[in-house]
């Protein structure tokens, strides 16, 4: 028994099976977490090796090179790059997307094991790090306080950090910008010298005074007492009263030579939120956890935690990476609802019966929900790809049901009993329905096989649409006939209500007129085949010639997520006060100038080493880093790209700024990040590559780029104390002891820990700030020899200004420097690549420097290549499916002519709207192949049918056009109009999928218009050709049978 006859015979079972699918789907929908993109495993591994004392070039030759040479043979490696700087070598291995990172790590570990013995003796064991998108903080909170500032670190640590770290899925919580409490003993060097004291002596004294020591037990009478010396400092005041020495018979107290400050650490990173000093709480998630869920949980906790805080402490969100995710998914949800409404209207418009409309539309939620079950079962998320797949699929899922319903209706109208008509009518079209679903599957299933970055993005799209199409076909073959058998009645035109006639009489008249006009055009075209073919070829050639060169390409469109990050570098060594002034000036200026800015968080200064996140970013007293949040793009006029362009030109006005980097979207490259053009310059000679980088940078500026970033830092100025070995030897000193003296005075010595209510605070002894400000102060530092003789540092050596060479960066085993430029407005990646390549070719680079386009260009080329291959594969598959359906090679060939016109439509659409060809648009073009042939199939199939029923070729074709125009228009319109919300979307994240919606809409519309005329003409030509051949054969056979008897 066939599927549909059992479905019609058992309506309850059938209905409940689909209800069950829907329930599973709803359950999945409720429990599915949301995310921006499908989970992408990181593809980078870092290997860090330290070799203390070695210079950058030593590190390069002795560590980086041997490691690179060995690691280069790890399989699936895409790029290997290294950073060699003083003491440290960091090698990054970039693997091809989709490579299992665990296996890659093991391979790398094996190789490291092999090469370890060849590394210099003093080098540490290479350590492997994995760094991925999971390490990016998901939530950054700002903390501002007034009265509680002094104790803020402790309050935050106890009341916020510990509590938040307990939330499920939170990886690490760190506090930055809030100075820790520290007890500082700030000494006056002159007084120290006068009393013959040293920093070291004071430190060790403090250490030995601040002690609790058990002295054993004592037995008195029948009791045992333990005996202790309990002299740990009870308050920081006690330290001042320590006796540190005696002079001329009197006690020298610590307060005589130093002041004790119980305060906050000096010179740490400061952060401001909207101009107000405060700190940041940085929250990272555990690997593989869902950001949105964690942030929701954290936000739930926050009000509870805030209650326990002193009233002057305020917590605010600075960066919430999930805001954009939630908004994007929200705008996709709206898109899906709009699409649903549009499809509903189109179906109702064409069918004119509400019962039929319901039968068709019920397949949409069921197929969509079924695909959610897949997402749930495979542990995926509701993300941009899976949601836009749903939106794409809506227009296509109704096609099969429409065909089935149409045939059932015509049988019922002829007088069949609905129950039986449902079975027989479905039986008649089942093959055609399955075949047209197969052509769609032929497009989407191969997508699941694509490798690389595109594979990660489109595997889900492929699976989702394939599942939706499969389920909708099942629906059309089981649910639709079942519902038709119970719901449809023979149409009684006279019984229709007045309003119904009012609306649908003109519609039907219009559609009939359209069919008749089309039939007339077709009739004319069939009689003027040459002209039609000439026009078609002309269109193809003209569009190819005109639009082809105008087309631009890019990788992944930039997404406006409302975030801008700015890094400003002043000359190295700029004092923090000056940096702070500039930072606050920029802060005030921008917040006044851009009302779009909701929050502006900035940080300057050197980060504490215990703040993982802050210390990983570049930091220093001369660096300002800003995080700007502009809110949803729907609520502002200027895009973040425009805003950041203005910021770039404003930053260029400041002469004191050495370099700056404004990144719209908060990240470069990758998914939806800022698109940049990157030129990699390879060459061994620093001078030559530096010169080349400066040249390329100036060419970029000539092309309208506002900022360029050269990857190599300049030589960094610093002071070096050059000790004279002979002199220090004379005093019985060595370099290490002198260096320690120096360090204890400038950086300070941690003497001991001050304990208070369970917490420990450092007691740091050093020179008071006013005595360590100039070179003179350093030269005047007193060093004591082993015999106790006081010597000034200037007697032991000289202080010289020196330049530290920059980090040596290598990529693919060659020294390189990269120049990165964000694209100016209205320029696509392909434009910029061409323009800059032309400049480089024209002007040439210094000898020994070679260049290559870097950045995401590699990924782009590779992805386009694999999508191109996919396209060929899909064309072949679609052809095979059609050839099997028609059992002919000619008809599929004829239908395939729709494909070039789809590309013509795509080209026209891209050029007219100025949209670059991104991978999304490319995927749209690939999808179009499977959809455009469906119209051809319907037309050719019906023309064949007419011929089998005995019509002549031309009549068969015209009649097929006349009677099939409605279903063709209906399925095309549901698909094209279903794409419109995607193509015209202005919501969050719409930049990414707009290209896809647009290519499908344009490709399908243009190809439908052209193929409605061109394919029938070609059909006639080939059919006539086939007929003539058949006749000739018959004639020949007849002649032969006649001639044979004559010969014998």
């Amino acid at each position, binding site marked *: 028994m066939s599927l549909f006859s059992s479905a019609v015979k058992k309506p309850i079972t059938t209905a409940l099976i689909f209800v069950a699918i829907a329930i599973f789907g709803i359950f999945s929908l409720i429990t599915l977490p949301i995310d921006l993109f499908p989970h992408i495993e990181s593809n980078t591994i870092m290997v860090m090796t330290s070799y203390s004392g070695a210079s950058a070039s030593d590190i390069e030759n002795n560590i980086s090179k041997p490691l690179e040479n060995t690691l280069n043979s790890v399989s699936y490696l895409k790029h290997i790059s290294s950073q060699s700087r003083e003491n440290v070598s960091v090698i990054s291995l970039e693997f091809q997307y989709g490579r299992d990172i665990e296996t890659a790590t093991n391979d790398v570990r094996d190789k490291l094991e092999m090469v370890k013995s060849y590394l210099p003796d003093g080098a540490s064991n290479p350590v492997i790090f994995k760094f991925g998108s999971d390490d990016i903080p998901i939530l950054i909170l700002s903390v501002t306080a007034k009265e509680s500032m002094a104790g803020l670190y402790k309050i935050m640590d106890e009341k916020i950090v510990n509590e938040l770290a307990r939330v499920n899925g939170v990886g690490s919580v760190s506090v930055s910008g809030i100075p820790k409490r520290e007890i500082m003993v700030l000494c006056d060097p002159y007084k120290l010298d006068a009393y013959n004291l040293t920093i070291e002596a004071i430190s060790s004294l403090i250490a030995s005074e601040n002690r609790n020591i058990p002295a054993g037990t004592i037995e008195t009478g029948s009791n045992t007492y333990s005996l202790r010396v309990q002299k740990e400092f009870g308050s920081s005041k006690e330290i001042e009263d320590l006796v540190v020495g005696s002079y001329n018979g009197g006690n020298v107290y610590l307060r005589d030579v130093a002041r004790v400050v119980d305060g906050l650490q000096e010179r740490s990173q400061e952060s401001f939120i909207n101009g107000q000093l405060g700190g940041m709480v940085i929250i990272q998630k555990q690997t593989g956890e869902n950001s949105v869920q964690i942030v929701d949980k954290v936000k739930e906790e926050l009000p509870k935690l805030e209650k326990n805080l002193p009233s002057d402490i305020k917590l605010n969100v600075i960066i919430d990476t999930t805001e954009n995710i939630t908004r994007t998914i929200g705008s996709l949800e709206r898109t899906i609802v709009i699409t649903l409404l549009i499809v509903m209207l189109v179906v109702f418009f064409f069918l004119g019966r509400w019962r039929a409309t319901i039968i068709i539309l019920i397949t949409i939620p069921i197929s969509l929900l079924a695909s959610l079950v897949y997402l749930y079962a495979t542990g995926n998320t509701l993300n941009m790809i899976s949601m836009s797949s749903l939106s794409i699929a809506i227009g296509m899922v109704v096609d099969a049901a429409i065909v089935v319903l149409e045939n059932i209706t015509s049988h019922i109208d*002829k*007088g*069949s*009993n609905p*129950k*039986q008509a449902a079975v*027989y009518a479905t*039986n008649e079209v089942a093959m055609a329905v399955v075949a047209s679903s197969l052509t769609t599957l032929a497009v989407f299933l191969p997508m699941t096989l694509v490798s690389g970055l595109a594979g990660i993005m489109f595997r889900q799209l492929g699976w989702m649409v394939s599942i939706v199409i499969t389920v909708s076909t099942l629906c059309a073959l089981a649910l639709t006939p079942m519902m038709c058998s119970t719901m449809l009645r023979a149409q009684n035109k006279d019984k229709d209500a007045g309003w119904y006639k009012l609306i649908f009489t003109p519609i039907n008249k219009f559609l009939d007129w359209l069919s008749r006009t089309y039939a007339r055009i077709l009739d004319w075209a069939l009689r003027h085949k040459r002209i039609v073919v000439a026009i078609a070829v002309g269109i193809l050639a003209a569009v190819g010639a005109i639009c082809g060169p105008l087309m631009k390409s890019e990788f992944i469109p930039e997404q406006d997520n409302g975030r801008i990050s700015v890094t400003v570098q002043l000359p190295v060594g700029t004092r923090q006060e000056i940096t702070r002034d500039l930072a606050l000036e920029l802060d005030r200026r921008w917040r006044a100038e851009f009302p779009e800015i909701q929050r502006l968080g900035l940080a300057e200064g050197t980060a504490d080493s215990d703040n993982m996140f802050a210390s990983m970013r570049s930091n220093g007293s001369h660096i300002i880093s800003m995080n700007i949040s502009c809110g949803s793009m729907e609520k502002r006029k200027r895009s973040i790209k425009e805003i950041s362009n203005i910021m770039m030109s404003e930053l260029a006005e400041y002469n004191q700024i050495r370099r700056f980097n404004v990144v719209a979207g908060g990240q470069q490259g990758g998914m939806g990040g800022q698109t940049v053009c990157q030129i990699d310059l390879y060459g061994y000679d620093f001078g030559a590559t530096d010169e080349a980088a400066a040249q390329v940078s100036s060419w970029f500026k000539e092309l309208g780029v506002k900022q360029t970033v050269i990857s190599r830092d300049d030589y960094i100025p610093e002071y070096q104390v050059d000790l004279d070995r002979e002199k220090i030897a004379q005093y019985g000193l060595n370099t290490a002891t002198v260096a320690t003296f120096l360090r204890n005075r400038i950086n300070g010595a941690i003497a001991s820990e001050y304990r208070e209510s369970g917490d420990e605070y450092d007691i740091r002894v050093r020179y008071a700030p006013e005595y360590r400000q100039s070179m003179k102060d350093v030269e005047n530092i007193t060093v004591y020899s082993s015999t106790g003789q006081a010597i000034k540092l200037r007697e032991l050596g000289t202080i010289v200004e020196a330049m530290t060479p920059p980090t040596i960066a290598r990529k693919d085993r060659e020294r390189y420097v990269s120049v990165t430029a964000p694209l100016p407005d209205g320029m696509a990646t392909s434009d910029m690549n061409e323009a800059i390549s032309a400049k480089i070719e024209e002007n040439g680079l210094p000898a020994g420097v070679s260049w290559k386009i870097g950045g995401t260009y590699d990924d782009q080329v590779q992805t386009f290549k694999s999508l191109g291959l996919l396209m060929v594969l899909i064309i072949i598959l679609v052809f095979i499916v059609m050839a099997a359906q028609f059992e002919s090679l000619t008809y599929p060939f004829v239908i395939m002519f729709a494909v070039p016109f789809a590309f013509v439509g795509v080209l026209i659409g891209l050029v007219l709207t100025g949209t670059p060809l991104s991978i999304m648009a490319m995927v749209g073009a690939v999808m179009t192949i499977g959809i455009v042939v469906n119209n051809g199939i319907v037309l050719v199939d019906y023309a064949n049918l007419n011929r089998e029923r005995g019509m002549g070729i031309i009549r068969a074709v015209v009649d097929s056009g006349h009677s099939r125009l409605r279903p063709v228009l209906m399925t095309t319109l549901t698909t094209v109009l279903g794409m419109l919300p995607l193509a015209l979307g202005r919501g969050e994240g719409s930049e990414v999928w707009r290209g896809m919606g647009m290519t499908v809409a344009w490709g399908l519309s243009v190809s439908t218009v052209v193929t409605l005329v061109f394919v029938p003409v070609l059909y006639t030509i080939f059919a006539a050709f086939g007929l003539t051949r058949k006749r000739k054969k018959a004639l020949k056979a007849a002649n032969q049978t006649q001639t044979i008897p004559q010969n014998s």
Partner: protein
Amino acid sequence: MKAVFIAYNEAQGAAVLEALEKVFIKGFTLWEQVQGRGSRDGEPHLGSHAWPTMNSAMVTFVEDDASKRLKERLKEIDDLKPALGLRVFTWTIDED
């Protein structure tokens, strides 16, 4: 005694069986999914690409008056939905 041969669109199956019941005919032989084409007009029922519908064929042997009543009933069905096509042929048969 008459032999009644009925050829009809399979969509009419239920109606034909009902007609048989109405005139109290119990016995019949039925072939489902058979091909057929009318001599004068109407669509062929060939189960092919061009003519996808199929016929059913039935033969029943009844008394003369039952055959008459059956023919009337079947005529009514055919008149109701002429597009589907239903034809009845009878011939006299020996009773032994």
